[in-house]
């Protein structure tokens, strides 16, 4: 009895333990603060995109809700943080960031009821429709948002009154990376908690989820709200690091690119959004220096290849690579007890 009990408790906990690969990933991410100072501007964009993609992974990878409207939350929080800074309502950036996240989460909560029912296609259309409406509202009320010219005259105060944003994006990068890390840790706790497990179960089989006492609807509402909050924080980060906000924060392009980023990185293991964002940004940077106008051709080609490789499970196209990597690491480090957790979340 006792060994089995230990085995059960150990296994259920072990999955939530940080593995060597993950620690290495974050050590490297923070090391770029000193290693790649000349790249901080693009790294800032990457960190923001990564957080945005993480928000989509929470609903797509863990709750099975597909969305083409994640930009709605990104954009609303982006404008919110710009406006509160412009009019001096909330000056301290971290407080403004949290408030922007809450605003986006509130919008997520309200709209979640629209995406609960229906198939993937209806969800795509509803989320798309909401972000289109918001985009047009921002366009219409240009006296508030600045319309097509964007929100001008935003000045962002120093973080905690101490750290001034600089032209080279050093402060901005440290800020964004730290926020990304904190949000990641929260997301990680969520997906390995009983709540996160119940969502994975519901994603796999909602009928049975209901039949073992899970209030499916409320769980989806909760996750959608959290995801919207994360997307909002990403949007606010963009406004704060650029001291600017324009209509394209709400554009369809932004939501579509996001889906692409997540599919490149793979869904349902949390790092997909992060890795996808790095690949996407650096490919964009690299290819666009060669063919400035046509770089999306290559992104399109990669998308087609990924979808053909992954077939039905496009978000899982790199599962084999992930599993092989985990085995390799397990082999190299030869500490089997801990390394069970090195295996990426299979889902």
């Amino acid at each position, binding site marked *: 009895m006792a060994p089995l009990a230990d085995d059960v408790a150990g296994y259920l906990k072990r999955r939530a333990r940080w593995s060597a690969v993950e620690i290495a990933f974050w050590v490297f991410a923070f090391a770029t603060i000193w290693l790649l100072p000349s790249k901080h501007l693009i790294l800032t964009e990457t960190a923001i995109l990564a957080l945005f993609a993480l928000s989509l992974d929470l609903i797509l990878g863990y709750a099975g809700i597909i969305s083409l409207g994640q930009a709605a939350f990104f954009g609303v929080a982006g404008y919110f943080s710009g406006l509160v800074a412009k009019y001096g309502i909330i000056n301290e950036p971290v407080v403004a960031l949290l408030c922007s996240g809450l605003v986006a989460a509130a919008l997520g909560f309200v709209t979640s009821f629209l995406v609960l029912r229906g198939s993937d296609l209806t969800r795509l259309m509803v989320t798309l429709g909401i972000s289109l409406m918001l985009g047009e509202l921002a366009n219409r009320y240009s006296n508030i948002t600045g319309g097509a010219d964007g929100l001008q005259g935003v000045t962002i105060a120093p973080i905690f009154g101490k750290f001034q944003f600089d032209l080279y994006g050093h402060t901005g990068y440290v800020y964004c990376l730290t926020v990304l890390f904190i949000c990641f840790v929260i997301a990680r*706790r969520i997906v390995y908690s009983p709540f996160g497990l*119940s969502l994975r179960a519901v994603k*796999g089989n909602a009928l049975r989820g209901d039949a073992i006492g899970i209030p499916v609807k409320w769980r989806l509402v909760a996750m959608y709200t959290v995801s919207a909050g994360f997307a909002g924080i990403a949007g606010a980060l963009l406004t704060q690091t650029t001291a600017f906000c324009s209509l394209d924060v709400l554009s369809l392009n932004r939501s579509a690119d996001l889906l692409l980023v997540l599919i490149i990185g793979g869904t349902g293991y949390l790092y997909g959004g992060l890795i996808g964002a790095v690949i996407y940004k650096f490919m964009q940077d690299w290819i666009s220096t060669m063919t400035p106008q046509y770089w999306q051709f290559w992104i399109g080609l990669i998308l087609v290849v990924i979808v053909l490789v992954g077939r039905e499970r496009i978000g899982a196209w790199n599962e084999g690579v992930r599993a092989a990597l985990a085995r390799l690491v397990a082999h190299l480090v030869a500490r089997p007890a801990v390394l069970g957790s090195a295996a990426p979340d299979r889902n």
Partner: protein
Amino acid sequence: MPILETIGLEKRFGGIIAAQDVTLAVEKGARHALIGPNGAGKTTVINLLSGVLKPTAGRIVLEGRDITSLEPHERVRLGMARTFQINQLFLDLTPLETIGLAVAERLGAGVDWWRPVGSRSAVTDEVVEIVERFHLADVMHERTAILPYGKQRLLEIALAFACRPHVLLLDEPAAGVPEAERHELLATIAALPAEVTVLLIEHDMDLVFSFADRISVLVNGGLFVDGAPEEVARDPRVKAVYLGEELVERI
């Protein structure tokens, strides 16, 4: 007082009557079997009881409380859980995670979004007990999708059992299980705790007559005969619609 009652339960799909005037009483601690030929409406009754379908007329009362309008997950919380005729499992999870999830939900940990699943000893202790009771210890780390069919059937029941139901609805638990794995499954069902009331739907007459202390026969959506196994087996009307002569002689 019966633990579970239906009063004039009816379900129509457009013009088709899937169940009509089903008035059924399941006594506390009973091993009650619901039998009937294909298409008689047995699964419809289970779907109505568990809340997957809403009745067009009639009421369902569980432990004195009217649950007719409650959602499936609310009925589970009140103490009634079901299994499915066709496995409804979480294929990407392991049996351990599956049972851990159900136990965590029941203990109210399902809204906990911070601590890992395994950090509560109340959850893990109960998971251990269920894994052992349902002979799943040797496969508990496998992905559910790759388990042998018999083990999946056991997990199907274990998952409902993990909800600690007062009333357990089993929808053809032995269906499709290969002969080699059958014994383990039937023995596990027979060993379910006496205080759990079981309503069983089954085609397999060996299982029905070895297990049930009361049998209700459903024909064309309506309740036909209701009684002790010997009475039902001898009833000429039942013989006519359903049971073979051979079986009656054996009993």
